[in-house]
């Protein structure tokens, strides 16, 4: 089996947006595998632990008065003057890709199997071989306007270390975000633009936090998906019908994700890796970490979908050994539904109520189409055996997952 290798370099990453205009950095055939590196966009929260000594990370994050390797960060404007910076941080995730699958056309489905994931070790001699991640409680978090201790509002960054031996993550220290001025002279009073290096001489570190608490590791990629068709540059923040920032920790080793293809080649990108996350991703981020993943890509042509699990699929679908999960969003396809200002309009639409509605409809359709149930059967089964969970309440287009256990259908 052909196994490709796609390292993260300035030439293989794009920052903060999906785009059908990007040339693929790798083209592979259905059935082939690729090992893809990703670097977390929160690495600059602790430069010494997550960037220093790592040549690729150093190059990607390089930003001086005269030089900024990755200028565009986000789907916003690239013509100054800027409020936040080029791309305006309308989308924040540092993604590796896109990877094209030969022969993929709109209407097809691309299956991505997560074969394995492993963390990227620190290359700084002082921390060599250790794994670090960052978890900001950010201004887009569910807690931000609802804080009870002072000062309010505030953003707090917690740095974690991943212990692969025990498969747990422990907090190292935290600090309150203080205004940071980037090399172009723009001051960031809050976390409003990705990749701004935090000057550790300006923050006060708090040690001894979450003492003894071990968070079970749940290694996964928060963002995996294909390029949408509706616009040239699409923010990576709201997840949508071609996937993207799903932030579901179940999309981990052993998972198979199915995505509807919207543009030729599919154009798969991934990043936003997490060492762990809870259902809801409450504070706005998970434990953001750099991971490398091995993936297998399988193309399912439109003509072959009938009678399979993928018949009529218009949204991302997860399959693993235990369950099938459909992803409901506040707005199922916000690019198509919300009109010309969709990228800003979606920021006002986050609601679990509409996401639950969407998840219900998608699971009903899935059960009726792929399990040949009548509507009454599907509804009874959903009530007694399907589980609805909160995926995230922080990615503008909020998510509710509807899951049904595969073991329920032993005779099928």
């Amino acid at each position: 089996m052909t196994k490709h290798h796609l390292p993260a370099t300035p030439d293989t990453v794009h920052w903060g947006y999906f785009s059908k205009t990007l040339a693929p950095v790798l083209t592979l055939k259905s059935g082939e595998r690729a090992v893809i590196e990703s670097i977390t966009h929160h690495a600059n929260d602790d430069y010494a632990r997550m960037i220093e000594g790592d040549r690729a990370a150093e190059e990607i994050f390089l930003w001086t008065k005269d030089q900024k390797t990755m200028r565009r960060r986000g789907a916003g404007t690239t013509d100054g003057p800027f409020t936040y910076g080029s791309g305006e941080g309308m989308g924040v995730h540092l993604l590796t890709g896109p990877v094209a699958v030969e022969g993929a056309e709109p209407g097809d489905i691309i299956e991505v199997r997560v074969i394995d994931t492993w963390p990227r070790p620190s290359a700084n001699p002082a921390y060599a071989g250790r794994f670090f991640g960052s978890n900001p409680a950010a201004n887009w978090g569910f807690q931000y306007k609802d804080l009870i201790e002072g000062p309010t509002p505030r953003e707090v960054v917690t740095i974690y270390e991943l212990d692969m031996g025990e498969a747990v993550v422990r907090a190292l220290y935290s600090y309150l975000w203080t205004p940071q001025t980037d090399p172009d002279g723009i001051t960031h009073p809050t976390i409003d633009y990705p990749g701004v290096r935090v000057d550790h001489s300006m923050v006060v570190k708090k040690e001894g936090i979450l003492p003894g608490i071990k968070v079970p590791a749940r290694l996964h990629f928060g963002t995996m998906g294909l390029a949408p068709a509706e616009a040239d540059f699409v923010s990576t923040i709201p997840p949508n019908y071609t996937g993207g920032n799903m932030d579901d920790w179940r999309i981990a080793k052993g998972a198979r994700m199915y995505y509807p293809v919207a543009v030729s080649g599919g154009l798969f990108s991934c990043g936003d890796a997490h060492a762990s996350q809870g259902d809801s991703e409450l504070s706005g981020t998970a434990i953001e970490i750099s991971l490398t993943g091995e993936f297998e890509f399988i193309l399912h042509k439109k003509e072959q979908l009938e009678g399979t699990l993928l018949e009529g699929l218009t949204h991302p679908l997860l399959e693993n050994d235990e369950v099938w999960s459909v992803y409901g969003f506040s707005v199922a396809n916000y690019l198509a539904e919300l009109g010309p200002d969709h990228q800003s309009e979606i920021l006002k639409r986050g609601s679990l109520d509409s996401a639950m509605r969407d998840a219900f409809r998608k699971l009903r359709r899935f059960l009726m189409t792929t399990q040949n149930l009548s509507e009454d059967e599907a509804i009874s089964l959903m009530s007694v055996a399907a589980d609805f969970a909160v995926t995230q309440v922080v990615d503008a287009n909020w998510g509710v997952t509807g899951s049904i256990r595969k073991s329920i259908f032993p005779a099928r």
Partner: protein
Amino acid sequence: MNAQPFTSESYSGDAGEAAWQDVLRGFGLQSQGARHGSPAHASALSRLSSTGVRLGKFSADAQSLRPLPSRSGLPLLLMPVENSTVLVVDGDRQIVPAGQIILAPRAGDWQLQFQRGLRAVVLSVPAEAFRGRKVPPLPAAPPRVFEAQGLPDIMGRTALATAEALDRLSEAEWEAVAQSAAELLLALSGELVAATSDPSSSRAALLQRLYATIERSMGGEDLSITDIAQAEGISERYVQKLFEGTGESFSHYLRERRLQRAWHDLANPAEAAVPIAEVAYRCGFADAAHFSRLFRERFGLPPRELRRREADRQAHSAVASGQRGWPQQALVQLRAGQGAGGPARRPALREGGEASAPVAEAQTPARHYLPVHAQHVHWGYFSRSLEPLIEIASGDIVTIETLTQHASDDPERMIEGDPGAESVFHWTPTAKTVNRRGAGPLDASVFGRGAGEGFGVHICTGPIAVQGAQPGDVLQVHILDIEPRRSRHPAHAGRVFGSSVAAWWGYHYSELLSEPHPRECVTIYEIITNADEPYAEALHSYRWEPQTDPSGVQHVLYDYPGVLVRPGTVTLQANVLEGVRIPLRPHFGVVAVAPREAELVDSVPPAYFGGNLDNWRLGKGATVYLPVSVPGALLSVGDPHAAQGDGELSGTAIECSMTGTFRVTLHKKADIGSTVLADLTYPLIETPDDWILTGFSHPNYLAEFGASSQSEVYAKSSLDLAMRDAFRKMRRFLMTTKALSEDEAVALMSVAVDFGITQVVDGNWGVHAILSKRLFAQHRRSESARDI
């Protein structure tokens, strides 16, 4: 009629396209292809008024709309929003920017091309919308575009604002707005007439003004043709001539309009209290008897009869559209002093002797057994005033038999031959052992459904008093065991059955895809307990058919618990969910202590006192901690479930009678200060692995909404609110019991706490937060709370 949401996401492939055309057909429109890109998408929210006015907001892929010849009426109003559209008439193309409105005839050769996606508001007003009032014939004018100013602007804004609020307007509000929109459209259509200059249309415009004057002045008893002529500055003769041209005399038209208006006012529920004589007077009839005669001649029934029929229809449609709990109106009357009757008075404690007392005082823990029968249950409500069945000491073990209120869905399998169940469900024309079912009025004066009106449905066994329990204490209820209750019917003896109803209070009910709808569907399950991994499988299902209960009340919907479904009244469908095995999750949906706020509390919405938690994690080996709010705590258990998914989407789980064994422990307020129970104000579930905190849309809806709580809670539930509550509770739990700072608590919640949807069907919706105990195995912080 409620707002109808539509989205193509509900359908597979071409079915979505067909369903979308159905939506458009309702407006007299059809879509023409030109749909490209994947996936094809269309969504709409629309609403129909009782007079046929239909308003909708569409959002879909690029496509063209054309008229579909339909029943007569005013021209269609179409308003592009966000994107412009292209109006094509006879090959001429005109760009119509967003915000302008188009009046287009219901037939003819025109189309609207939405090239950048269809986003539009559409209003359709049929001729009937004016209830017999004359609408002058409109010349067949081509489509016309109006700039957004003056009346067209008001029309456009009204339509848009209404379209955006469709799902938030009450029935009465929507009817009022729909009628105003129809009037506005009528006035605007008049401009179409005025704009053309041929003499017949100027006559039509004048006639239209005469009609409008009559509408304004018909309340005056002595309105004459002279008054009308004077108001318009024309001669009486000319008025007569104009009316002759319509084939109807002035006086005949005036009387017809007066009778129509009287009909409308009499049918209006908001005016049900206005005396008929007064309605007659305001419509220009000074003599009530004369009015009654004319009315009967015209409509074939007396005014009083019309009113009665309309009241019935309103009551019925209120139910059909999902009225749960107390209607607001009825609560007002209740407060005005028409008592609802207290909780059922039951025979004194231990009468019948089945409830066993502690075997011996000295033995610890004492064991108690509470069998289920009519004297041991309260049905559909909690009450601080119920006499406890037994009193137990802290630490005692009590085995409690519970019955599902859905046993009546299949009496043969779940009731017959079982003395306990037969006793509770016994209901004949002359005897009903458990009369009160729900917290509603005993005389069923609100809907006439039955005593208690089914405002609350669960059969609860209890209450049990706990010695020494006082408000501020916490009651720990630990489930040691759960055993299913086996059928005693000879044909099914030893087997276990349950029922699941896709009911009118289910989450799916407002948007069923397949016909007929709406509909309720009951699925009977068998619980297979002798397998390695016990499971449930469907036996058969049936569609709910109107059932007449022994007291003679017909239940068109599943609106009252315990109505025995008689064999032969429903059609069983076999081969349901073939080959599907549902793993069991036996648990109790209801575990409650009595709330303090009200005398009778509907058992459906859960809240701080526990109640209808519907969380399947509350099974064998789990514990729930409940804050005590009345002396003795008054613990009740019921609503047993064999399996349920997170969400409980259809309105019910697999409802199955079961017997539970519980260890009940009281924690005194003074002793819990430094424990995980410190500060507990909500039901807290503990399993061997996790803490599960229960968030609700309204954590204490009884206190929050006060007197109207038992109505409001059904109207104002939301997952967004429940998520907010779950977040706040988890933050507090981590800060209080684990001594974390707020920042630590927030960080931990984002990376290690799982939020899930408990239920979206119990009035007060639930989101739970799960905290794994494993996180804290080595957590050391001296201020942390002790475990219990």
